């Protein structure tokens, strides 16, 4: 029984043509993004399935998935709020805003709200320092720039209403 959808499997298989013969392992990062977009996170059986499609060992997938910060190897909320905590954003109020977000959502960084809607995660510089404080939100990874408390409140409200 495959855990990924047929279309995800097809998409991953199609990636292989981007690389020379025998180098299909190169498709691993984009494949993990596809799997994560579908599952919300990367359960072991999804990683094993990716390993199977790319004809590599499961451990090669685990090694990679745990190296890169974008891959969630534990379950996360429906919306993962990834907010920048790096120096330049902090010169313009990111730390204060992050603590506001924690209070607003009633969770600490790294945690998920009880309703399973939001996971708050701090990340490093998102290359938007001039438009900080900044966060992004999956699965599209849309950037929300020049964040303020008001904008954050509004965003949370919108997402709550959508669900």
């Amino acid at each position, binding site marked *: 029984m495959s855990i990924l959808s047929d279309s995800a499997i097809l998409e991953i298989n199609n990636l292989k043509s981007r690389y020379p013969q025998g180098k299909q392992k190169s498709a691993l990062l984009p494949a993990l993004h596809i799997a994560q977009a579908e599952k919300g996170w990367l359960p*072991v059986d999804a990683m094993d399935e990716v390993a199977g499609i790319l004809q590599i*060992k*499961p*451990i*090669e997938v*685990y*090694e990679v998935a*745990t*190296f890169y910060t974008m891959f969630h190897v534990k379950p996360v909320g429906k919306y993962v709020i990834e907010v920048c905590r790096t120096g330049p954003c902090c010169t313009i109020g990111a730390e204060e805003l992050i603590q506001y977000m924690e209070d607003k959502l009633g969770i600490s960084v790294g945690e998920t709200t009880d309703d399973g809607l939001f996971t708050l995660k701090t990340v490093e510089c998102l290359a938007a320092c001039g438009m900080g404080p900044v966060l992004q939100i999956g699965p599209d990874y849309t950037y929300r720039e020049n964040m303020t408390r008001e904008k954050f409140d509004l965003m949370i409200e919108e997402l709550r209403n959508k669900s």
Partner: protein
Amino acid sequence: MDSNLLKVTIDGRSIEVPPGTTILQAARMIGEHYPPAMCYYTPLKESGGKCRVCLVRVAQTSEANPRPMPKLVASCLTRVENGMVVENESSPEVLEARHGVVEFLLINHPLDCPVCDQAGECDLQNLAFEHGTEQTRYEEGRREFDKIDIGDKIQLHMTRCILCYRCVFTADQITNERVHGVLNRGDAAEIGTYIKHAIENDFSGNIVDVCPVGALTDKTYRFKQRVWFSKPFNAHRSCDKCCGEVVLWIKNNDVIRVTARKNKFGEVEKFICNDCRYDHKNLEDWVIGEAAEIERDSVIRANKYKTKIHSPAVQVDAKFVSE
């Protein structure tokens, strides 16, 4: 002079070596005072370059290019060029750098030598003894991991690991199915199988032999004996899986452990199978040869630790002693 050979001078002593030889190999050919190596392992492709204890200074790149190299280089990976002049122990800069690397390797190490199976044959213990300092300057919390069994024969004590990657290369190159690897990154990186997974493979026991510290240990031997109470003998048997050439560690006519043979640089040249390692612990199984020479500058040979560990660099945490 054979025109194909390259002349290299290390700490004032010269040797001619074939192209492709690394500085470390050349230094080992010269003899005694070669750089230490915690991650490089001759039989393992791609090993080396990570621990940085083998750094040396290249004072002259080659005859054609008499300039020094701008940074210290990893002697285990840097190839000799003709006319190269290298400083190892003769360079204060190298010694200071090595001292720094040893300190880095120790800050997150548990220093639990008194309860560690590797004590007495641990490369890190030896290194700390030679290049460590009296006092640690590190006052912050140490990284800790739970010890786990990976299969019924091998225990992983990640807290002691120095991330040399040797066991990973061994699993890749010596066994046919690697199920463990390096997970996470930075100082949170760890050796693991990710999901509970036993390392079971005819040659898996070799990952214990290549580990320079006590992170991977032989569970069938654990705590049986301090290594210096047993006597090593070369022995062999005819084996259809491997060379059958091993070292038996014998005490009172009991085989308490079987390992592969190591050369004088502490490297296994012929890997052995798990049958020989785990399933033949009777003296009758073996043709016993001469006493094995434990050649490396090890604490066993130096007889430095007859009764208890007291490396100056190793301040033993009371917690571990009472464990």
